[in-house]
C-alpha cells in the first residue's frame, strides 16, 4: 500500500486534526468523539444539522461543515459507522432549543447506532430526530433487505435541510424538506478500481485489468454486475438509464445533475462524463438546471464515478441556491 499515512489507526484523527488546523476560524475538532463542528456552534436559533457515517468518503462529511451546510459531522473510522458514544455525545453537544436532525445514510450499522443514540438522547430530553437517506438505485429495494443505500445524493438532502434550517424552519419542517429531496434523488455509481482502506493495506476487492463494477457502493461493496471496460459514453448510458427509469424522470423535468468522483478519478474525466450525461438527458427532454462536477462523496482512492439526478421544483431549487460556506476552499 502506498498512501500518505503514519499509523493507520490514527488516519482519521490525523486527517481531522489537519482539517481543524486549516480552518481555525470556522471549525472545531473534538478528538474524544472524532467530532467536527462549527466553531461558533451550536446556533441556539436554528435546528442543528448533523451527518454521521463512516470515514473514507471525504469531503463528505467532515469537510462540509460550515454555515449553510452541516453544523457537525460525526464520522466513524474508515467505512465503519461511528460508535454509539460518539453519536450520543455529538447529539447532546449539538442540542439547540429548536432541535437536532441526525442525517444518516441507510446502512445496517449506521441505522442501528443512530437510532440507539436518538432514543437515548431523546430520553435525556434532547429534541432529536433521524432522517435516513437512500438514493442508490443499484440496490433493489425489497422487504428482504435493509433497502437502498445512501450515497452521493445525500449532498442534496444535506444542502436543502441546511438551507431550510438556516432560514428558521422548525424540526418537522426541516424533516419534510429532507424527505422530499430524498424522494426525488437517485444515484448510481461505477468503479474502475477497488479502494484500499489504510488499516487493511490492500485493495478491498479484485477487479481485473479490463473489468469495471457497475452499481458499486461507496464502501467497496460489489455492485449490480461486473462488465468489461467500455467507452465513457456507454458507461454513462449504463448509469443514466436505471436512474432515469427509477423515479422515473421524464420529458419536461428540470434536474440537478451531479457527476461525483469516487476519489481516484481526475476531474477531467468527470467533466467528460458530465458532457455526455447532459446531452443524453437533453435528448430525453430533461433539462439540467444545476450542475455539480467534482468529488462530493468518495470511496477512499477508488477510481470511478457516480451520477446523481434530483428532480427540481421551485422550492428545492431555491434551497439549493442558498449560500453556504465550507472548508473546501478553492480561492
Amino acid at each position, binding site marked *: 500500500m502506498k498512501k500518505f499515512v503514519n499509523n493507520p*489507526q490514527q488516519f482519521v484523527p490525523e486527517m481531522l486534526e489537519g482539517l481543524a488546523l486549516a480552518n481555525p476560524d470556522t471549525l472545531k475538532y473534538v478528538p474524544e468523539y472524532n467530532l467536527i463542528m462549527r466553531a461558533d456552534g451550536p446556533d441556539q436559533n436554528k435546528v442543528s444539522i448533523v451527518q454521521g457515517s*463512516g470515514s473514507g468518503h471525504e469531503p463528505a462529511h467532515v469537510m462540509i461543515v460550515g454555515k449553510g451546510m452541516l453544523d457537525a459531522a460525526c464520522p*466513524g*473510522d*474508515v*467505512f*465503519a*459507522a*461511528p*460508535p*454509539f*458514544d460518539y453519536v*450520543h455525545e455529538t447529539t447532546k453537544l449539538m442540542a439547540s432549543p429548536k432541535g437536532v436532525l441526525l442525517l444518516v445514510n441507510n*446502512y*445496517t*450499522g449506521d441505522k*442501528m*447506532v443512530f437510532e*440507539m443514540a436518538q432514543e437515548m438522547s431523546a430520553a435525556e430530553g434532547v429534541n432529536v430526530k433521524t432522517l435516513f437517506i437512500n438514493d442508490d438505485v443499484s*440496490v*433493489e429495494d425489497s422487504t*428482504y*433487505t*435493509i433497502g437502498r*443505500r445512501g450515497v452521493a445524493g445525500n449532498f442534496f438532502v444535506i444542502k436543502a435541510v441546511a438551507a431550510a434550517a438556516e432560514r428558521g424552519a422548525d424540526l418537522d419542517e426541516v424533516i419534510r424538506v429532507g424527505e422530499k429531496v430524498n424522494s426525488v434523488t437517485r444515484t448510481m455509481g461505477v468503479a474502475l478500481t477497488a479502494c484500499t*482502506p489504510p*488499516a*487493511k493495506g490492500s485493495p*478491498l*476487492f479484485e477487479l481485473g485489468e479490463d473489468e469495471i463494477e457497475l452499481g458499486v*457502493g461507496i*464502501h*467497496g*461493496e*460489489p*455492485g449490480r454486475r461486473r462488465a468489461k471496460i467500455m467507452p465513457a459514453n456507454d458507461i454513462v448510458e449504463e448509469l443514466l438509464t436505471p436512474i432515469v427509469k427509477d423515479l422515473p424522470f421524464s420529458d419536461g423535468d428540470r434536474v440537478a445533475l451531479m457527476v461525483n468522483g469516487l476519489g481516484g478519478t481526475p476531474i477531467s474525466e468527470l467533466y467528460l462524463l458530465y458532457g455526455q450525461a447532459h446531452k443524453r438527458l437533453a435528448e430525453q427532454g430533461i433539462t439540467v438546471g444545476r450542475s455539480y462536477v467534482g468529488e462530493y462523496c468518495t470511496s477512499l482512492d477508488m477510481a470511478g464515478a457516480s451520477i446523481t439526478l434530483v428532480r427540481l421544483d421551485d422550492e428545492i431549487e431555491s434551497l439549493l441556491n442558498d449560500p453556504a460556506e465550507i472548508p473546501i476552499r478553492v480561492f
Partner: protein
Amino acid sequence: MTATNLADIEYVVRTIAQTAVDKEKEFGDFDAVVGDGDLGYSLARGFEKVLADWDSYKREDVSTFLQQIAVTITSRIGGSSGPLWGTAFLRASVTAKQFNEITGTAAVAMLRAATDGIKARGNSDLGDKTLLDALVPATDELERMITSGANAADCREAFAKSTRERAEATSELEAKRGRASYSGERSIGSPDAGALAVAIIIERIVAGWPER
C-alpha cells in the same frame, strides 16, 4: 454465585477480547470478501479497550461485570458490530441475574438472550447470513448435549464444532443484512465474516478451557 463462576466468565470475555485483537487482520479479510473489510478493525479497537480497562471493571457479580463490558463495546466498536455485540453482552448480563451459578443451562440461556438481542437490534433472523446462523444452531446443539447428559468437555467440543460447521455453511446463503447484503447473489459461495469470527473465538475458548 461463586467466584469461580466469575473467573470462568472473565476467562471467556478475555479470550474473546484477545482473539479479536490477535485476529484483526484475518477478520478484516473475511469481511472484505463481500463486505467492506472493517470487521477486524472495529472489533479490535473495541476489545483493545476492554483489555485496557480490564482491571477497572467492577466484579461484584457476573451480571455487573458483563454489563460494563457491554458499555465499553457499545461505545467503542463502530460499524454494525458495536450495536450488535453490545446488545448481545447486555442481554447476557441481564439474563445472568436469574442464575445463582453459571451452569451449562445458564450459559445456554445467556447465549439465547444474546442472539435474541442481536435479532431484535439487527432486525434480522436465521437465514440472513450473519453470525446468527452459526451461533443459534450451535446454541441448540449445546443445549441438546447438556440435556442428553454429556460431560462438560464433550458439550464444549460439540459447541465449538457446531459453530464452525454452521459458520462454514453460511457460504450457501445469500446475505440479507449488513454491508455484505449489497452483494446479493454474489455473496453466495463465501462464508459470513461475523459467523467465521465467532467460530474462531469459540474454538479458542474451548481449546484453552482446561488451562484457563
